[in-house]
């Protein structure tokens, strides 16, 4: 439970952070809230020789409502997202997820950017970002790129981020009819199964849907067959929604662990997909 020895640096701006990253290469690790990295270090699954603390870099902790939706700095904490009126209004699924992460301590320290960069297969945000079609801004020494969420989450603890890159901002379009629900692990509250849904409604019907699932596969994924099956379904017809969601985890190799078997996770993906869609429909 004691990490191996490390140095610590706290750059004031992105340029200094890039310089430190360039200097130390693989030996360095960025740290934001520390709530994924420090547990790994205590188990010595990560043994960086220097931590580059980005938590005081200016301008990365904003929540801004724009004409196109929301711009969220990578350093925004879970607690800040959960408490934001604008997030609740424009992207309720994200507020749902933020409010259900871990416990108060974790929510006060852990960051949106850190959670996304970490790529934990049971993290909540990846499902939300996939369902809401988020765009992730990635800064490097040479410049910036923007990735679609669909191209960002690549596998277990694997994202599109390279070692010398810093995730700076997440942008979302407005998604008033969206929701996130999960079956939390009773101890950690990580998602055993978590589902985010975003709907476009046309009168009483679902015109189109995006549904994404976390906790089940090696990384969060879109349930595209469910999305297809939902189009045209009456948003108030619980039975029709259930049957559209039945194959939520089709084609995914669901993970098994001591807490839940793969078959259980797959079955719960269908149950929670229906719940997420139902919740999104009445928003």
């Amino acid at each position, binding site marked *: 439970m004691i990490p191996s020895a490390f140095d610590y640096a706290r750059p004031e701006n992105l340029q200094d952070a890039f310089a430190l990253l360039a200097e130390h290469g693989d030996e360095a690790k960025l740290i934001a809230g520390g709530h994924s990295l420090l547990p790994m270090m205590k188990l010595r699954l990560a043994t960086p020789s220097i931590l580059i603390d980005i938590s005081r870099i200016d301008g990365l902790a904003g929540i801004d409502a724009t004409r196109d939706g929301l711009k969220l700095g990578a350093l925004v904490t879970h607690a800040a997202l959960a408490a934001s009126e604008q997030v609740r209004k424009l992207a309720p699924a994200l507020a749902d997820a933020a409010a259900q992460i871990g416990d108060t301590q974790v929510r006060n320290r852990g960051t949106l950017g850190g959670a996304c960069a970490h790529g934990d297969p049971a993290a909540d945000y990846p499902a939300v970002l996939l369902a809401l079609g988020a765009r992730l801004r990635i800064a490097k020494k040479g410049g910036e790129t923007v990735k679609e969420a669909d191209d960002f989450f690549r596998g277990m603890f694997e994202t599109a981020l390279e070692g010398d890159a810093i995730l700076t901002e997440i942008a979302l379009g407005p998604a008033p009819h969206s929701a996130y629900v999960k079956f939390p692990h009773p101890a950690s509250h990580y998602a055993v199964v978590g589902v985010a849904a975003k709907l476009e409604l046309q009168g009483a019907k679902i015109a189109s849907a995006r549904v994404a699932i976390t906790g089940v596969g090696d990384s969060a994924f879109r349930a595209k067959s469910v999305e297809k099956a939902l189009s045209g379904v009456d948003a108030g017809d619980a039975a029709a929604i259930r049957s559209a969601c039945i194959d939520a985890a089709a084609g995914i190799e669901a993970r098994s662990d001591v807490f839940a078997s793969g078959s*259980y996770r797959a079955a719960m993906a269908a149950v929670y997909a229906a719940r997420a869609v139902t919740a999104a429909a009445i928003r």
Partner: protein
Amino acid sequence: MTAVVGRAVVGTPTSRLDGREKVSGEARYAADWPFENPLYGVLVQSSIPSGRIDSFDLAAAESAPGVARIFTHLNAPRLVPMDSPPLGQTFLPLQSDRIDYEGQHVALVIAETLEQAQHAARLVRVVYERGPARIDFRAHLTDEIEVQGFFPADTSTGDVSAGLGGADVKIDVTYRTADRHHVPIEPSATLADWRDGKLTLYDAAQWVHGVRIAVAHVLGIPLDDVRVISKFVGGGFGCKGFVWPHQILAAMASRELGRPVKLVLSRAHTFTAHGYQTASEQRVVLGATRDGRFVAIRHHSWTPTAISDDYLETCATPARASYASGAIETRNRAVRVNRGVPTPMRAPHEGVGAVAFECALDELAYALGVDPLEMRLRNYAERDPTTGTPFSQKNLRECYRIGAERFGWARRSPVPGTMRDGDTLIGYGMAGAVMFTVRMPSTARITLHPGGDVVIETATQDIGGGQYTILPMIAADALGVPVERVRIVLGDTALPDAGGTFGSSSTMSAGSAVFTAAQELKRLLGGRRSVSQPLTAEGKFQPEHSDALSMFTFGAVFAEVHVDRDLPTPRVARITGVYSAGRIINPKTARSQIIGGMTWGIGQALLEASELDLGLGRYLSKNLAGYVVPACADVRELDVTFIEEVDEHASLLGAKGIGELGAVGVAAAIGNAIYHATGTRVRDFPIRPERLL
């Protein structure tokens, strides 16, 4: 034998006399004893399940700060072999290069501080030569062996094959239970103090005299030179019953280094430092007539044991004593695997067996269309069906009746899946409970002091059962003094021997010794009420075994389970248990024992399983995050009733044991309720939601 009757204190709910010490932190558990200038020990455990140690690289560890000595098989003193019990495991630690199981102690690092010992333990490098390992006992049932256990492996009465041949209805089912661990909140700990040729152990022990005998023998020192003290134990449940390698190693290290040694196990180390409750494979074959009377009962079980140690979990015991049948055949076999040796765990034998047996009976009841409670009444055993002898006492019929009434069994709709509340499926299930009565020879001493204080001395242990309160209650009544005037000293081999606190035996055994000592004191007093000099009397309880009587405790358990239709998570809404278990000395601590047992039953039914990696022979989660036990939110309404009775044959008090009885039959009642709620019969325990998909 005569029993105590109609006293003021016995039978009155009395709060724990040691409660204040416990909640204020004054109570001294083994690791709490203050020690001057101690050394600290940390174990290194094998990472392979089978093979041998090729070599150690200790250079880094030995030169780490504060390290006093690293014991391995290459430098540890030779130990003297001994039987089990008192040893839990006869395969003694650090005696050879041989590895029989993952998590076997291969080194003991001793350093000036705990942190230094922990650090150096990480630096110990072991080079292994891996041997072939057999981990999964279920894959090797045909390699079964006969093993000597606490109970006979086999029994047979009547002709089971003929009975089954003539049965109108037959059930032939196989049930599985999981490996489980005791995980008491206090991990095992031994503080060893070798001083002037004498050894004192402050230990977390359920049997101080057992530890004394074993450690003295194995280290080759005179019994009189060893003293074991265990004043408070933070839960034992069987894992501190016998003597395990770490206790021997702590004593050995203290002797070798001439300084006190503190060895407190980490939670992870406890998973293999002492025994566990075996998983089981149990086949139950039942034959009955159309009107629901048994004509044949067959119960066979298989459980794992270690490579070089024998342990037999006799699962097929409930079938021997529970129901009337002309033919009963029971058989228990073991399979050797590369794992540590199992040990009893609340509740052993009947507790594991009842899961299969009482669920199979339920299956038969449904197959016959007979109410499960009615089925049990039709087959009520007036005598022990295996031996033909009468029971010392049995009021199980009353348990059924009162239990059914309190629970509201009559509200049950007979067809599974027909009781609902919105999305919640509701199920009612029940089971019987039976537990063999174990008694220990015990001695005690009582002293009346000038001024009126009474002091009881007896080397029993209070592992949470309430003996700190119960034994003073017995003495208070026998002497006619208020319980506040009585103090008890226990958990110390310097006191009169009173056997191990296991087998649910302590209250009746130590209690009977206390009772005789009090009687003797009264005789010595000859009518006087006070003394000018302390006056001491001794008492003894020597249980006499008789073939003419069968001695068991009984119970009827009813459970209501709610299963969410979608998830489908089973939750126990309430349990009613009614028990025929002799005289209840302290109804308050007795209820506490039973609700503790019921909680264990909930764990056995729904949660507890030590998942094993079948390749590495290693438990996947040596911690309480992965080994899930019931939390308060899992335990709701528990309703406990004791039949008022006095079993004069069992003990001088008319009392029997209840520490384990409460854990028997609960998992079966829950399993049966889940079937009633869902129509899905799960024969693989614990019943995780995924098994109900």
